[in-house]
Every structure is written in structure tokens, then in C-alpha cells.
């Protein structure tokens, strides 16, 4: 029997340290427990149970029935599933690069010392505090082909505007335009990054004879590249999950002619309209894997164009 064990025996230094560790850990866990319990029961558990359900036939009310890979196999021959992937990729490939270019351009503009700068910076952020449903309803009016704002402006320059949301060839473009309305969030991050670029770098470049374009390409862009990477990745993730605006403008149908049937919208229809929860879970996991893979690819290639070290 060791001296340190026993109720009245004084604790050794090690045991006291261990006790202190567990005390502080316990206290820490206690403090984070509201989040921890929520995370375990409302996020982690559903996360893994959806993986299980993706291998079952499940309609919420009757017990799930194991069917192995059948859901995944069925997805491969589901034409609407394929259409939803096509729509989502089309949206992502245009919306994300466009969003980055627009955000960088606006950030550069707002970074100049121009009159009314503060007012414009505030105005630019306003769309982000408008709820997405209200945004979608507002844009429905802007896109109205006969009395809408956009076609009225186009008519001024002699262009007959398209039917926008009512035309399958223009409906996705319309949603991409709506998405650009929320560019203010990215602009704000880029503005902060721009203001962090050390002045001496520009001075050094000027001494070397750099013009405005050279300074932008060789100084500004590398210095803000970590923020551009962040905006690109969050942009891709958000685009893969695009839902609300398409749900509102198409009344939940993904129309006209399935042209706004995005991945998440089809997932929602399968899960909550037809109660094919197993099928919807399989779709959710494929989406998760796709986001993971694409994000990893962007991260890997980012080593070539993102500069972290400022020293």
C-alpha cells in the first residue's frame, strides 16, 4: 500500500496535478455542456444515423429496413438526380468565380478615398440583413418581364429583356444574379485584408517601376489571397447547398421544367414530400463527400497561389 493512497494521506504532487487537471476539465466541460449536449444529440447523432439510414428504406413511421447499396444504385440511374447535379454545377461554376471577381473589384473601389465611401460600404452590406425569403420575393418583382425594373432598364437601351425566372434558359442565370446581391459579406472581409497590406511593399514596388496593374497583380493579390481562398471555399460550399431562393421562386417545384431543381431542393422533395428518407440520406452523404473532395482539391492547389507568410 502506497503512502499517497488513503483518505487522510496527503496527495503527492503528481496526484494533485492530476486532480487539478480533472477539476479544470470537469469545470470546462460543465461550462461548454449546453453546446456539447446539443452537438452530441442534435448534430453528431443525426449525422451518423443518416449514414445508417442511407443504407435503408425508411419513411419515418415504420422501422428502417436494411437494403444495402440499393439507394446509391438507384441514384445512379435517376434522371432527375442527374439533372439536379447538372443544375448545381452550372450554378456553382458561374456564381462562385463571378462572386469573387465582383467582390475583389468592389473592395478595391471601396478602398479608395472617395466621397461617400462610408455610406456605400453600409449600403453594400444591407442586402445581407434582408431575410433570403424576402430577397427572393423582391427579385421576383425585379425580374417581372413586363413591368419589372430590370427589363424596364434594358428597354431604355433598346434591349428586349428575357422572361428571366419564367424561362428555363434564364432561370438559373436569374438565381446567379440574385446570389450576387449578397456580395457585401465578401467585400467586407476583402476590405479588411486590403487595409492590412503593408504600405512599404507598394513603395518598394513603385521604386522598382511598377505601374498600377503590376502593383495589383504582384502585391495586392498575393497579400489578400488567403481571404480569396476563404471566400472561394465558403462560396463553393454554399453553392452546392443552394436552396432557399430556388424554393421560393419555383414554389418548391424546381421549375420551370426542372431548370431550378438544385441538389438540395431535390433532396428536400425526396425527404419531406415523398418521405423517402433513406434515399434522401444517401443524397445527403453524396453531397457531403462531394463538398469534402472539392474542398480538399481547392486546398491542395491553393499552395500554388495563396501566400500566408508575410514576414
Amino acid at each position, binding site marked *: 500500500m502506497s503512502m499517497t493512497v488513503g483518505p487522510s494521506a496527503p496527495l503527492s504532487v503528481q496526484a494533485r496535478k492530476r486532480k487539478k487537471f480533472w477539476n479544470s476539465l470537469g469545470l470546462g466541460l460543465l461550462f461548454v455542456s449546453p453546446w456539447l449536449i446539443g452537438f452530441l444529440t442534435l448534430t453528431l447523432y443525426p449525422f451518423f444515423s443518416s449514414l445508417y439510414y442511407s443504407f435503408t428504406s425508411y419513411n*419515418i413511421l415504420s422501422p428502417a429496413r436494411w437494403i444495402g447499396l440499393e439507394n446509391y444504385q438507384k441514384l445512379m440511374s435517376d434522371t432527375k438526380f442527374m439533372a439536379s447535379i447538372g443544375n448545381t454545377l452550372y450554378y456553382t461554376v458561374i456564381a462562385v468565380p463571378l462572386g469573387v471577381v465582383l467582390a475583389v473589384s468592389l473592395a478595391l473601389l471601396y478602398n479608395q478615398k472617395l466621397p461617400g465611401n462610408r455610406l456605400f460600404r453600409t449600403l453594400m452590406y444591407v442586402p445581407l440583413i434582408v431575410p433570403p425569403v424576402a430577397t427572393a420575393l423582391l427579385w421576383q418583382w425585379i425580374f417581372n418581364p413586363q413591368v*419589372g425594373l430590370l427589363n424596364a432598364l434594358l428597354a431604355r437601351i433598346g434591349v428586349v429583356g428575357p422572361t428571366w425566372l419564367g424561362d428555363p434558359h434564364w432561370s438559373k442565370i436569374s438565381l446567379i444574379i440574385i446570389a450576387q446581391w449578397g456580395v457585401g459579406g465578401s467585400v467586407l472581409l476583402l476590405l479588411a485584408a486590403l487595409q492590412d497590406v503593408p504600405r512599404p511593399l507598394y513603395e518598394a514596388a513603385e521604386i522598382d517601376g511598377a505601374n498600377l496593374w503590376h502593383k495589383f497583380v504582384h502585391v495586392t493579390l498575393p497579400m489578400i489571397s488567403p481571404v480569396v481562398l476563404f471566400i472561394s471555399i465558403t462560396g463553393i460550399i454554399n453553392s452546392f447547398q443552394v436552396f432557399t431562393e430556388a424554393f421560393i421562386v419555383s414554389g418548391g417545384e424546381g421549375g*420551370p421544367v426542372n431548370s431550378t431543381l438544385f441538389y438540395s431542393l431535390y433532396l428536400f422533395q425526396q425527404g419531406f414530400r415523398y418521405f423517402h428518407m433513406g434515399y434522401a440520406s444517401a443524397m445527403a452523404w453524396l453531397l457531403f463527400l462531394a463538398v469534402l473532395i472539392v474542398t480538399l482539391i481547392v486546398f491542395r492547389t491553393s499552395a500554388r497561389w495563396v501566400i500566408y507568410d508575410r514576414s
Partner: protein
Amino acid sequence: MPIRKNAFSLALSVAMTLGSAQAVTNITVWYPWGPPDGQAVVDRANEFNAAQSDIHVNAVLVSGSGIQGTTQGKFLTSVTSGQVPDAVLYWGQDVIPGLANLGALEPLDGYFAGSGLKPATINPAALNAMKVGGKTYGIPQMSSDLMLYYNKAMFKAAGLQPPRTLAELDAAAEKLTVKNGNDVSRMGFIPWLQQGLPLVWSGIFGGTGKLVDASGKVNVSNSGTLKALQWEAKYVQKYGAANLTRFISSIGSTTGSSASDPFLLGKVAMEVNGQWHGNYLKRYKPDLDYGVVPIPYPVGGTPNATWINSNAWLIPKGSKNPLAAMKFIAFTSQVAVSAKHADAVYNISPIIGASKLQKTLDQPAVKLANQLFGSKNVFTSPVTPQILNLQNELTTAFEAVQQGSSTPEAALAAAQKNLDQSK
């Protein structure tokens, strides 16, 4: 002492309250609308509570009653968790086969006798549309059917008579269309506006009954549905897909009754809509000179054909007091009560004999709806667990033709393929 005495009397009164509370069965009923339709349901609950003392109904507004609309999913969540309302009023009948198939609904046949509700007092077509596999899963609460609304002033100015056949309708539509440069400023008629849904036109051409065959197999490319779509395609050819889409996208609400209805605003001369629409026209444009006729029929079709649809009382699986709920449903299904309710909401009572008591029969739309309701050529949505998916695929197929991006044959073949896959 006074304190103790007070405590004693308090305990006594609590005990008495509990005693009397135990005798009353409290039931919860969900209903789907705000006023005026929702208020009418609350009024029935209050009348029922006043008329007897065994059962107390607590009516709660849940949009779409938790089955469709913004609260979609609430109904199923309640059934899964066992915390269910005792009865639910749903604004249609299309979800019944799917919910019954999931096992989310209580079959009602066993409660007729105990509640005093006699199935024979309910319109058989309306009641049969709520049966799945021989069991009754819903009680029709209020019924509606569809008709053609036409603008009398426009018809008079053009020297036209209201159409009886589709050929007459097409001719009137052409004559009443007004162009303003490239844009159409008024259309005579567009088949797919408002209630001109694929299931409706398919039924007018005799196709709705053939959408599901005897073995339960879905067949969307049947001859009736194809003919309906071919007829719609003629409108696309005549007026141009782009022009039609452009016109429809700019005329406000085209899928529900409201103050921005295109017929109400004079943007179209004719429109397919339900008798409830008369209530909206009266409210938002009381001076509108309009008439109603049965939906015109095609060559080889039948006159007075229309799609009928009813709101349904449902009892969810797990209801604690199904019999008490059924007694409330029986109360609302009495001839006089149902007639009064129908008057309040411009609907047709599905209770046999009640429509004769309706005061709104002097309204042309309600009067015609009531006549059509007794027609032998009425049809309902097919009863199949696939109905929502079927509607979705039909909508997509019809849209593809309306947009000019597909032929009727190809569009229906694609819909059939998707339905076969999703089985």
C-alpha cells in the same frame, strides 16, 4: 383558523374542479386556414362545446394543418413522437393515399356507429375518393368543383356567346386576345392559368381515370392525358411559347385566388376556377360583370364534366380520443350545420340534402358548382400512394410543352420513365 378554513375550501374547490374536469374529454383539432375559412371552423367548435358537456374541442390553427405549406412535416413529426392532435382538417384529399400507406392515419370505419355519423349521408363520390384499399381514411368536410368564368362585357363587345365546346372556347379565345405591339395586353384564354391543372384537363379529355390502372400501375401517357396536352400545345403554336410565358410571368398571381387574379384584373377574358373564386370577385371587384359555365368539352367528351375535390377530416394514428373526435366530425356533418358552414366559405356541402339549404345558391358560381356536383361526369384525383409524385411529374411534363421545349409525346414519356424509376 380562518386560514385553515380557507385552505380547506380551496382544496375542496380544486377537488371539485378536477372531478368535473375528469368527466370532460378534451380534444385538440388542427385546422389549416386563417379567417374567413378558419374562423368558420372555430365557430363550429364553439357551437359543439356549447351544445354538450362531455367533450371540449380546442381548435388550433396550424398552416396546412402541418401536412402542406410552411409547416410541412409537423403532422408526421407529431405522429412519430406520439404527441398527436385528435383530428386534423386538411385542405384537400391528395395526401390521403400517401399518409394511409405510411400508416400515419387511423381507419375511420370502426367509429361511424359510435359517433352517430352515417356514411350514407355523405356524397358517395366525395367519400369514395378518401378510401384506400377499401378502408375510409377521411371524412369530406367541404367540397369544391371547377368551372369556366367568362367576362360578360368582353363577350358582349365581341358579339360572342359563352362557349359550350372546346372548339367554341378556342375560337372565342382567339377573338378576345388583344395585342399591343409585340406584347400581349390581354389573352382570351390560357388553359393552364389558375385551376387549369394537368389533372383537370386530363380528366376533361377522359384521362384522369386512366392515370392508374387496375393493378395500381401509373400510366401518364394514356390517350386522354396525351390529347389534353396536344390541345394545350395548339395554344403554344398559335400564340408562341415565349409570348405566353412572358405574359403569364407579368400578370401577378396565377395559381391562387387573390386581388391580383388576372381574370379579376381583366387581363384574361376567361379562366378555369372554383366556385370559391366568386367570393373573391365579390370582395375585390364587386362591379365585375361575369358569368360561369361548365368547363367546355372536347369532341367525344362529355358535358358537365368537372374535377371535384374535398377538404378532409383525418384522425392521425395515435389519437388519444378518436371516438370523441369523430363525434365532433359527426356534429359538423349534420345537414343544417354543414349548410351554414358552406355558406360562410362559398363551398358545397358534401352532406346529402345540405346544399338545398345553402343561402349562397343565389350566387351564380355556387349555384353552378352545386349542379355540377350532382353530375355523373365528375372525376377526382386518382387514389394512389404515388399521387404527389405523379402530380409533380405531370406538372413538369405539361410545363415542358407550355414552354415549347418538348413535344407532348416526349414530355409524357419522360414523366412515365421517372415514375417507373421512383416506384
